[in-house]
């Protein structure tokens, strides 16, 4: 399977920052400091379970 990580990153940014462009930048920075570079994931990227696990935890916190 592919593309799940890109989908999750987009969901995190949308949920947390909504339309706030400044906040979108901060969320991207936080992800990069966690070792997840949003620019590197496309709809064709492999579904790396380690990255997915980190993102699942984040999605839970953001609710």
């Amino acid at each position, binding site marked *: 399977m592919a593309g799940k990580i890109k989908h999750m990153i987009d969901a995190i940014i949308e949920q*947390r920052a909504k339309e706030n462009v400044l*906040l979108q*930048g*901060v969320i*991207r*920075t*936080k992800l*990069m*400091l*966690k*070792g*997840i*570079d949003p620019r590197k994931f496309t709809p064709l990227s492999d579904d790396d379970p380690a990255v997915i696990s980190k993102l699942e935890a*984040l999605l839970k*916190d*953001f609710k």
Partner: protein
Amino acid sequence: MNIVSAYSTKESVDLVIQDLREQFKHMAPKMVLYFASSRHAPEAVSRKMQQAFPTATVFGCSTAGEIASGKMLKNSVSAMAFNAQAISEVEISVIEELHDESGVELAFASFEKRFGTPMLDLNPKKYLGLVLVDGLSGAEEKLIDRIGDLTDVTFIGGSAGDDLKFAATYVYANGKSYRNAAVLALLKPGSEFSFIKTQSFSILPRKLVVTRANEANREVVEFDHKPAAAAYAEALGISVQDAAGRFTHNPLGLVIDGEPFVRSPQRIKGSSMLFYCGVMEGMELSLLEATNIIEDTRKALAEARAKLGTVSGIVNFNCILRTLELEQNEATEEYGGLFSGCPTVGFSTYGEQFIGHLNQTATMLVFK
């Protein structure tokens, strides 16, 4: 004035306290933030600072050097007092065991109780957070990472120091001193505020990708599938034997929107490299090259002044590695001078926090 800074170089804690009280006598402090040299006994300094300002929220930490208006100091206590116009609300919480994974949640629960709003719903333009953390805990990344997961409020701060003894660092709150702990403060300032993150490096084109790391130990085992030390040396065109001598001048940086988040190498261990902050597998790091701290800081302060119009107070968390470089270049007086004429408090840190945990950076909170 709503924000007043003061410092004292007196010998004993009692004389220091007396000196600071005298300098703050024309105001009613709602909050007192202070940074104390490790020459002062931790328990005594915290207890007596709280006793000196009994109606204020009083907190601080130990240092590797202090910063005051116009000065870089040693063996002193530097403090800043805020009245109710400057800080309309403040609440502090101590995380007494940094390795307790629920520490941030518990601290945030106390903030939510006090402010009556979930941390995720607080407006980051109206609230800000301060974080002071044990500088020898090695736990800063997890702490600031967790804070960032649970709120959009910006937390800024520094890791406590101990004048380069690397024996014990302390945070102070509630009249007590704590090790392996952090003080979190949630503030609602009475006026606008802004943040500065400044580091003096240019970004070189050469990049190194972390292909193997022991993240818990801040250790990079491999860059680009080669032993880390060898890859770093190769990138600089030098031998592995000479690599450690270049760490301060050529650290690495995670570059985000053109801004480096500096990761400073600490030492070589076998063929690996240990860092002063966390480096994750998959991170693409750029080689950095030192530029001029004085000029870069001057520019950053001018930008903050232009943004806010006026500046009524600055809290400066300045990396000890920057302080050492300034000392080496006999530029501490000039650096201190950048903050003359404006109430300033700060200290030389064992690490800086702003969104993440950083090295070789100054993070500053600036009040309008």
